[in-house]
Structures are given as C-alpha cells and as structure tokens.
C-alpha cells in the first residue's frame, strides 16, 4: 500500500476564499493509500516547505500531492523540497487548485471550488499511485560549439566562447565573414564607421586559435542532441587552395571577366575570381563557377597562370566535413524583402529607386562610388532624395505585418549622411510613426530633423514614377491632410527585414521552431530569449526578428554565455520525461520512427549467437527525446510509453474522474 501525503495550500486567501481547503484535506484522508492530509496557509513559504519535509519523514511518505497553484509556478519548488527530504522528486505531483479553480470560480459559498478541488486532488492522488520514481538523465558533453552565420552576432558569440576557452567552429556561407554589417557605412546613433568597428573583430575571429573558420560553407546535416551533436558541413568548392593562397590579389587583378557583385548589391561589378570586399576574412578569393570561362568552357585560366603559389585548382569539388560538437548557436541573420513586390514604387524599373542597403553602399567610403552619393542612372549628385519608410513592413496585405524596427533609425542616419555629403541637398522622409526607443535614439532623429534639415512627412507614398529624368513621388501628408508630390532625384526604400530564404529549411534540419515569416522562435520570448525548444541550440541576432547591431551583439554574447554555462558542467542532467520502448512487444512497424519530430527513435536489431539479426525493435535515444509523446499515441501495440505521462497514470486520472 502506498503512503501518500496530501498538502492543500490556502495560498493566504487566494485559494481559501473560494475553496474550503480543510474540507478538501479531510475528504482525501479516506482514500486508500493516503496516510496524511493537511491544509496550510502558504505551502511555498519556507515554513511550508519545512513542514512538507518534516511530514515526509514523520509519516514515512512515499508520495506527495500538493494541491496549490499551477505546476508552472511551484512544481520545481516542491519537488526540490521532497528531494531534500529523501523522496524521489518525481513522486511529488501538483494539483492546480488556484489558477484553474479558486480564481476562476468565484463562488463565495465555496461549494463549487471545494467540489472541483476535491475532484482534481483525487485525480492527482490516483495518478501519483501509478507514478514511478524517475532518475535524472545524465549525459556526457562534447565541449566544442558550432556557430552558424558569420555576421556580427555570430562573430560576437564565437569570440566570447573562444575567450571562455571553448573551441568554436564558425560556418559562413559567403566567401567572407562580416555579414550585412560589413555593408553598412556608418552606424546610428554614434556614427561610427561600420567597417572600422567590425573589421577588427573579423580579424580577431580569424586569428583566435580557438576558432576554426569555414567560409563559403553550409551546414548540411545535424544529428544528435544536446552535448553530443554531429554536424556535416559542406565546404563549397572555392577553386582556390586555401592553404597555398597568400591573398596577394594578382588573380583578381588580372581576371578578364566580370560579373555583378552580390556584396555591392548590383551597384558595381566584380571579377569572376574575387573576394567580396577588400577587408574580407579570410582574404582568399573564390571563383564564381557559373561565370568562369575556364570552368565552363575550358578556356582562359589567366588566374592560374599569374598565381605565384599555384593555389588555383579548377578541379576542386565540394568537400564534406563532419564535426562533433556539444552546442549550436544559430545566427543566420536577415535579408531584405524583394522590392520588386511593390510595383507602384517602380523598383527595378526606375534606376534611381534603390533600397536602404544600396544607399549604405553608396554612402560607404569603401563602396562603389567611394562614398559619393550619386544617382545610379547618370552618376549625378541628387539634389532631392525621398526616403520611404515601412516598405513591406507593417503591410499585412502585400508585405509583412510586423515593424522592421531598425528602419526609422537608419533612415534618419541616411538623411544625415546625405546632408553631410551633399550640403545643398534636401532629404524628405515619408514615415508612419517614428520608432526611436533606445539610448540616444530619439535625440538622433531630432538631430536629423532639426540640425540636418530632413523634412519629415507623415504619410505613405502611393506611387513613384519617372518623368523627364526625375522621380515623381506621390504621397500624402496626413498631418496637413493633403496630397503631396515631390520631384525627386532619387528614392530610397526602407524595405522590411525578412528572414533568410533558407531559414525554414535550416530550422527543420535543426528541429527548432519558427514563426509564419520564418523567424526562429525563442524558447520563451521574454525569459529565455536565446534558447530554442531543442536543447543545446541557441539563437542570436536577426534570425529571431528585426533588431539592430547592439541587440544582435548582446544576443550573441548571451548565447555564448548560455553555451559556456552549459559546458561548465562535467555531465549534463536533464528531465527524465522521455519515451521508453517495451521491446518484446514492439512490432517494428516504425510508425514511431516516422512520427517522431526529433528523430529520437532508432532501429535496433537483436542478434543471435552467430551475429545474425533475428528481430528488430525500436529504441529511444534518451538524449534526443524531448518527451512530446507523439510516438506513444502512434503506437498500436502500446509498447512505447512516456515517463511522467505513462498510460497507466493518465488512465488512473481519468478513472478517478
């Protein structure tokens, strides 16, 4: 016979006012297996917990039911208290009689609440009777980390972890690390030059002995679980032997063919063998195979001829590298929503309508114009520039419903950069709201307006068209209630930040959640902002949602600190809420294997003495299993069960209903 203790909490008056806790305790006393019951003012208080421990010892309890607030509040508290009293923590179950009873059923006669509390407590008692002691699962840890994405968030995470003595693998799909931040000219609100603050970090990442860089590479496959992941990295063929190349630049000097530069966002051409930008890390070029005449047609080969160290290798193939790691930081960043979606703004058709990032390149001193702001169409200095905010963002019909967050600030910055470079120029900004929450942000916007004379117009733009070499902007100023028309020389669209096109595919490969746009879901948006539901995988930067550089950097650091604290332990402990297979009755139909969202189920063969497999059955990998129970419901022969939520326990609860 079990020896169960039932503790009914009054929660001051929170429960007591509508539930007669004494009566609940009294009624439970008669249930078989219950040896002690009581009602207490505050179970979660220190005296309450002390009393719990005392009673466990005094009555030699082998199970405890606490009828109190939601298990989401204090399950951990009470389980810990039980553990201290020598009881297996999983032999403590909580009944929620506050959030789901006393607070929602305001019957002052206490009849309703008492009745329901008794039902619920009885169900928990019956469930507890079937409950088994569980042991925390302990796992080894590979103390190496993988960072996916070499933008500022990823670089920061990698540096912080490397500083903490962890070996880090940094994977970047472009030929150089740096990400979108490398494209920016100056940064708000301090107006530091982006490259000036980023480049040292990039170099640091390259030189740090704890960081292994894989540029021009992508994560192909991820297996395993927290502490023990195996990743396969595809190292795309560079056609340049990295170990030989000195980065002298002779090859791209001499290469006779050109293609559009991705980094310069179609504002400039680059050579077919190239580094994305002069400060690239590593400073090793790649050959753009589809455009290379040598690779496509077997003619040319100039780069190979001029290469001193003979680093060019036209025969190079993609390479696959397997790495064992213990944690992953995902920092894949963002891209801009394609402006072509907005036909009324004429992007792509009118040359002088450009995106915000293109403007950054124009303003950047290392950009295609050397920092001169000119019209892409004729190279003339624009005397009137119209900036349109919220292009695609806050537009649930044609774009995305969310606010892209950084555009207000960078548009203000753009107007300043423009004014600083074209003194006689006039900037106009069409905005809906100015969102400048942040340290020194509002002051910055005001400076753009008051000091640098940007004309802010509150309203959207309906149409942009070309007329006599000018770009006509037809919008509204809702503050004056009128239609406005501006003859501009150039129009800059502050386009919405969206997740990378490949974001969803990667999320599925990693088993992490994502929202309808493809931004990755945090474990908890407020309290666990850099963790994901898949333990051991962390997030940083704009792959979570639009954010600016300071936020990205702090998230990179936050993710790094999460990994460091994970790696601080010798062994990992985790909740034992995992599935188990009753192997003799397994049909080996593999339904569970197909249904499992985590690929936590494997096939296992039983061998006879000769080593021939005579029978197959399913096996749960405890490290990977997250305890959702999809397999349990899928299993027809009921040979899988989920610890903590076993069929028997649920059945007992239903039966006590």
């Amino acid at each position, binding site marked *: 016979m079990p020896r169960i203790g039932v503790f009914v909490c009054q929660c001051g008056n929170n429960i007591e006012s509508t539930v007669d806790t004494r009566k609940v305790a009294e009624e439970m006393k008669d249930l078989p297996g219950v040896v002690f019951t009581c009602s207490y003012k505050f179970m979660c208080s220190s005296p309450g917990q002390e009393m719990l421990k005392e009673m466990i010892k005094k009555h030699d309890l082998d199970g405890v039911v606490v009828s109190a607030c*939601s*298990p*989401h509040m204090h399950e951990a508290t009470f389980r810990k208290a039980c553990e201290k009293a020598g009881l297996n923590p999983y032999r403590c179950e909580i009944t*929620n009689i*506050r*959030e*789901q*009873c006393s*607070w*929602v*059923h*305001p*019957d002052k006669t206490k009849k*309703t*609440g008492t*009745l*329901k509390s008794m*039902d*619920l407590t009885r*169900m928990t008692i019956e469930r507890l009777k079937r409950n088994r002691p569980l042991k925390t699962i302990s796992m080894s840890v590979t103390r190496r980390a993988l960072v996916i994405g070499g933008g500022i968030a990823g670089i920061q995470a990698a540096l912080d972890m490397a500083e903490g003595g962890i070996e880090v693998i940094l994977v970047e799909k472009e030929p150089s690390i740096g990400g979108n931040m490398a494209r920016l000219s100056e940064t708000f609100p301090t107006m530091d030059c982006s490259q000036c603050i980023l480049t040292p970090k990039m170099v640091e990442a390259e030189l740090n002995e704890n960081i292994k860089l894989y540029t021009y590479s992508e994560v192909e496959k991820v297996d395993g679980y927290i502490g023990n992941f195996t990743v396969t990295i595809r190292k795309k063929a560079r056609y340049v032997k990295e170990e030989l190349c000195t980065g002298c630049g002779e090859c791209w000097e001499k290469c006779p063919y050109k293609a559009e530069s991705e980094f310069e966002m179609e504002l400039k051409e680059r050579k077919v063998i190239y580094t994305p930008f002069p400060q690239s890390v590593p400073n090793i070029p790649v050959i753009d195979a589809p455009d290379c005449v040598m690779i496509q047609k077997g003619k040319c080969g100039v780069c190979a001829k001029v290469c001193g160290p003979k680093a060019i290798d036209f025969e190079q193939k993609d390479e696959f590298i397997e790495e064992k790691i213990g944690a992953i930081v995902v920092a894949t960043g963002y891209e801009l929503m394609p402006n072509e979606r907005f036909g009324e703004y004429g992007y792509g058709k009118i040359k002088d309508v450009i995106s915000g990032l293109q403007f950054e390149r124009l303003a950047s001193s290392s950009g295609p114009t050397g920092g001169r702001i000119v019209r892409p169409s004729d190279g003339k200095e624009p005397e009137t520039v119209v900036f349109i905010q919220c292009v695609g963002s806050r537009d649930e019909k044609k774009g995305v419903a969310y606010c892209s967050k950084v555009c207000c600030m960078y548009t203000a910055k753009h107007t300043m950069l423009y004014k600083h470079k074209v003194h006689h120029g006039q900037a106009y900004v069409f905005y809906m709201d100015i969102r400048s929450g942040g340290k020194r942000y509002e002051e910055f916007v005001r400076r753009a307006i008051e000091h640098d004379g940007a004309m802010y117009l509150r309203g959207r733009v309906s149409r942009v068209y070309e007329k006599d070499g000018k770009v006509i902007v037809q919008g509204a100023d809702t503050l004056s209630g009128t239609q406005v028309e501006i003859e501009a020389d150039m129009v800059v669209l502050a386009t919405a930040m969206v997740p990378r096109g490949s974001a969803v595919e990667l999320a599925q490969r990693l*088993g*992490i*959640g994502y*929202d*309808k746009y493809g931004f990755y879901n945090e474990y908890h948006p407020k309290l666990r902002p850099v963790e994901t*539901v898949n333990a051991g995988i962390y997030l940083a930067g704009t792959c979570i949602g639009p954010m600016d550089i300071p936020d990205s950097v702090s998230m990179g650091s936050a993710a790094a600190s999460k990994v460091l604290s994970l790696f601080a332990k010798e062994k990992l402990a985790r909740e034992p*809420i995992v599935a188990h297979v009753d192997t003799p009755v397994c049909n080996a139909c593999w339904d569970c294997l197909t*249904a499992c*969202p*985590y690929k936590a189920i494997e096939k296992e063969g039983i061998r006879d003495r000769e080593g021939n497999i005579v029978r197959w059955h399913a096996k749960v990998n405890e490290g990977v299993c*997250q*305890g*959702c*129970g*999809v397999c*349990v*419901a*899928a299993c027809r022969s009921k040979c899988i069960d*989920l610890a*903590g*939520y076993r*069929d028997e326990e*649920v*059945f007992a*609860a*239903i*039966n006590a*209903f």
Partner: protein
Amino acid sequence: MEDKKTEEGWEPKIMAFVCNWCTYAGADLAGTSRMHYSPNVRIVKLPCTGRIDPLFVIKAFENGADGVLVSGCHPGDCHYTSGNYHARRRWIVFKSLMDFVGIHPGRLHFSWVSASEAIKWVDLIDRITEEIKKLGPFMEYRGLKK
C-alpha cells in the same frame, strides 16, 4: 441516477485533455487574470496534443464524462514543432468515426488555445458547457455499463 436528466441542479462533467505549453498555460492565464468560467471542466495535463490517444477520450466517456474537450497549441506553435499536426490528423479521423457511430458532435470538442488566449479559453468552456447542458447527461454511453 438514471433520470438525472430531469433532476434539478444536474451539472455536466467535462473532461479536458490539454497540452502543457499552450492550453494549460492559457487556462492558467485566465486564472491569473481573474476571469470566470463554468466549473464543470476537469483538466488532464499532457505534454502535447500529440500524446493524446483516442483511447483517452473513449475512457473519459466510459467514466461518465458528458463531454470531452481536446485542446492544444495552434498550428505552427507546437512546443515540439509538430505534435499538434500529428494530433490534428488523428482527430480528423477520430472525429469522423465518433460522429459516424452517433456520438453527438456537441459532446466532443476540439480547439486551439494558445498560452495568451485566456479569453478564448473562458469563452470555449462556457460555450461547450452550455452546449452539453442542452444535450443533457450522456445516458446513452453510461447506459452501456449494465
């Protein structure tokens, strides 16, 4: 017992199978927001709707439930990424089957309630309680016991 239907003060018994992450938390929020709803529902917490076996529902009816509610995270919001999609598939078939054998559709409810949808939870419970009250006790099923 048998003619409870006509008895004054009969209250339906409703069993709710909910997932830990969304609906359970949504119901908690209704509590912390001090909203009020019908007291007829008894919640059984499970990690995920994907864990909910059709047998649970059958068992609940066998144990005298007048109605059953199954609820979890909205599609795309599953804590386990896809548990609710699996659940939805099962329900599509199970619901058709239960309809086909004559379990009144008013007795078996499915819903998505997120952790923030306390209002939806309250409305849902009130609505189904009302509906089941109209249907009366599930004597047909209970009658099978003999």
